[in-house]
């Protein structure tokens, strides 16, 4: 939709972060998505999370593929790097970018079409390699950009705008990620920034690949009464399994940890995740219990949200491959490409 520029006016009491930037400095261009799109709320949550962790805009890389979701990197942090890849090819591009420059923070924005249909294989391999990145699936159950056909995440029985029910089984990115060894798995809802912002901050701090599946209603094609990904349905069926607070490493912890219902997970960089409320016998670091719990809730038709699983013990792409600590882009060219004589010497070793 055509849009009006956001006024330059700001609130007189606008706060500044450690870099002296205001939250407005983390905005991008005006969204051209439909008014009321869940993706715009996710964008706002990203803006807030990046502002709160005082991310240097030039140290951020925004990666995306094709789709409504993949347009959204244009709507936050104008000063960041970005790559808009072919459909479904964001994970390998991000993997390559991360391999070349491990110094940047990577945030990949994808949708249920980009990640669960055309790019499904690529996503799985990025998970396997534990590429250090935040990977968002803005999940609305339909192909909004092509007028609302069911996507691979549409639930059986969920109705299209014309009233036809979907009959094909859905792919659940959370269960899929857990099954192939993902080290950070969360599900959230675009309409709940109080939950989403801390999850995003934790995902940025995570050691490896952080998958966040976010229910993000398509206000144009999938927000009707028969939909299972509408604002109303999500609110009626959402169970917040966990409530997590993210405590950055430099911030002293003042409050004593309450004895009951709290699980603290120390992140690789020293920050701490506090799980304020989790169900009985729920351990967000135990893959089997998490999987069992999710299966049980799924059979009841509930949408479980929260930071569901964290494993900080697994090294990322670089650690596993013993890559240099220094980003490859900073390694001198003479060392990266030592010349034909060195190639000759190497080849001789294999003869």
């Amino acid at each position, binding site marked *: 939709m055509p*849009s009006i*520029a956001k*006024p330059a*006016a700001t609130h007189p009491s606008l706060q500044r972060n450690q870099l002296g930037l205001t939250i407005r400095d983390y905005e991008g261009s005006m969204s051209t998505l*439909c008014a009321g799109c869940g993706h715009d709320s996710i964008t706002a949550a990203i803006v807030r999370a990046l502002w709160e962790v005082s991310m240097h805009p030039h140290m951020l890389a925004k990666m995306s593929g094709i789709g409504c979701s993949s347009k959204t990197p244009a709507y936050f942090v104008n000063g960041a790097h970005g790559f808009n890849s072919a459909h479904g090819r964001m994970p390998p591009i991000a993997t390559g970018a991360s391999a070349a420059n491990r110094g940047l923070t990577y945030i990949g924005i994808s949708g249920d079409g980009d990640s669960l249909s055309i790019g499904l294989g690529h996503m799985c391999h990025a998970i396997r390699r534990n590429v250090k990145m935040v990977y968002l699936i803005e999940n609305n159950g339909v192909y909004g950009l092509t007028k609302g056909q069911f996507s691979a995440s549409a639930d059986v029985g969920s109705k299209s705008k014309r009233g036809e029910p979907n009959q094909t089984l859905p792919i659940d990115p959370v269960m899929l990620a857990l099954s192939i060894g993902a080290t950070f798995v969360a599900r959230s809802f675009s309409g709940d920034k109080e939950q989403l912002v801390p999850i995003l901050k934790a995902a940025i701090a995570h050691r490896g690949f952080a998958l966040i599946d976010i229910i993000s209603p398509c206000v144009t094609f999938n*927000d009707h009464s028969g939909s299972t990904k509408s604002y109303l349905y999500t*609110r009626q069926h959402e169970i917040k399994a966990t409530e997590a607070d993210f405590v950055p490493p430099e911030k002293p912890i003042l409050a004593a940890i309450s004895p009951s219902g709290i699980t603290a997970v120390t992140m690789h960089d020293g920050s701490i995740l506090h799980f304020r409320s989790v169900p009985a016998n729920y351990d967000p670091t135990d893959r089997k219990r998490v999987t069992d719990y999710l299966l049980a809730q799924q059979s009841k038709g509930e949408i479980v949200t929260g930071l569901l699983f964290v494993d900080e013990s697994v090294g990322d792409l670089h650690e596993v491959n013993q890559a240099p600590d220094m980003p490859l882009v900073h390694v001198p060219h003479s060392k990266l490409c030592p010349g034909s004589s060195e190639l000759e010497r190497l080849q001789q070793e294999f003869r």
Partner: protein
Amino acid sequence: MSDQTVKGLQKPLGPGITPRGSAFRHVKPTDVQNPAYFHKVVDCQWACPAHTNVPEYIRLIAQGRYTDAYMLNRESNVFPAILGRTCDRPCEPACRRGRLDGKPVAICRLKRVAADLRGEIAHLLPQIPAKKNGKRIACIGAGPASLTVANDLLPLGYDVTIFEKQGKPGGLMRSNIPAFRLPEKVLTEEIDIIAAMGAKIQYNSPVASLAALLREGFDSIFVGSGAPRGKDLEIAGRHDADRIHIGIDWLESIAFGHVDSIGERVLIIGVGNTAMDCCRSSRRLGGRDIKVMARRPRPFFKASAWELDDAEEEGVEIVLNHAPKSFVVEDGRLKGMLFDRLEWDAGAKRSKTLDTIFLPADDVILAIGQENAFPWIERDLGIAFNEWNVPVVNETSMESTREGIFFGGDAAFGPKNIIWAVEHGHQAAISINNYCEGIPATERLPYGMNLVSQKMGLSEWSYHNDYNPAPRQKMKHVELVERFEQLNIEVELGFTAEQTAREVERCLNCDVETVFTAPRCIECDACVDVCPVQCLTITRNDEELDLRTRLSAPAINLDQDLFVSDALPHTRRIMAKDEDVCVHCGLCAERCPTAAWDMQKFELVIPYAGVKAGTCVPA
């Protein structure tokens, strides 16, 4: 505007609508059916005593519709050209723009633009009926209050006679405002409009006795005689020399051509707006070394900031913390004055005297305030006077304690300003009309309102919703040398076309209101996310003070209301809006998928004299 009584608090709420304090667990949904809520959002209109529809006339100016802008002004403030030069501008400190970039919209200057560039208006004025209603009204003093009464009553068929002691009309507007601020032509034109409507102005007719006037059989009498007595300064030497002047009398003598010179060294005692007019007039009549003597520090001055600036631009010195002690007179000639130099505490409440100094002067002008004076009102007429010898006047009806006799302008509650005099005139006219029709004088119709959606199509709104970051335009003045050549050269040149074009775009269109329909909201957060000034929040309801701290940006300006919606359909949370710095860009409505937000133009329908009940509500 009906006051609400809050259960539990048992006290009426002001016009702020939403109940405050801890008596409530939850904030009640805002009553947007009460015109006061949206009216208060239009800060300028709310602050204006006459409730001039500022944003609408600024839009009309932007469209080049100067005549329409003038007529809209005239409806509420009657003297747009005069006020466009001389108004005290309560609207400007209130202006929302001032809270965003520190400088309010130059509302007053824009009013002058409309007045200066207007076209023919005779055909747009209210029709005066040929057949009169038979009621005769007497107004005392041809100042803004009486002229407003005449303006409001003549179209209803009243016969209005104005008694003026001077040979020309205008009251204080003529006698106390120098011609370099308000040219006589401008003053005369706007008064002539009312004279042409049929007001019979009897010049050189001071009312010597109210009892005598009462015997002339008028149906009602309006006293708009101003506060004509300048306060004196009874200190040693006051009556020993002849070159000590009372400010307003001296200004009046200039206005009527009785005074045309002054000594080189002039001391002005007092630092209100009259003092500013006195010092600037002195500058034009031969004064070279002019000092305005203030007792207190600058933040406590009564003069408007812009009048101080204008005086200083003309080389007038403003001397702080000097209290007059005595006049120094030798052989019947004024030599100067002694002053105590004071040192004040932080709040300028207490002072101590440092020393006493002498300042030489050829003339001294006293501008330390004005008082009402009613030697011509007999005290046995049933008009009660209070302990300060000021008549007891009902604040709603402007009626004195004697039925049928009304007061307004400075004569009612002491010196205020022109725009207050106009509003008193409007209220007195309603009361006089009530009185003549046998309705209680205090009876008032409620304010009405119109709310009309401004949506024209996709991303299309009927108003200019772009935020223009332009700074406030600076008024150009006539060069100093040139302006002192004659007493009546108007100093302010008025805005150029370019300045006008920029300044109108600084207006935030606060009257294009954000109107919310809770049942339509799907809580997608689009409005909350897009708002550039973080004034929207979807949250759980709570006590107001707590709610104010939990918003997207804390709502710390307690003078500004919170809008609180009904419970939202999905989660029973509420939509809260802090009105404080909303720029009325319309993005909330633009990004709302269900049209729960809409931008609707608010029009306050103000009941004037003769408006019948039921005609004041939206059609």
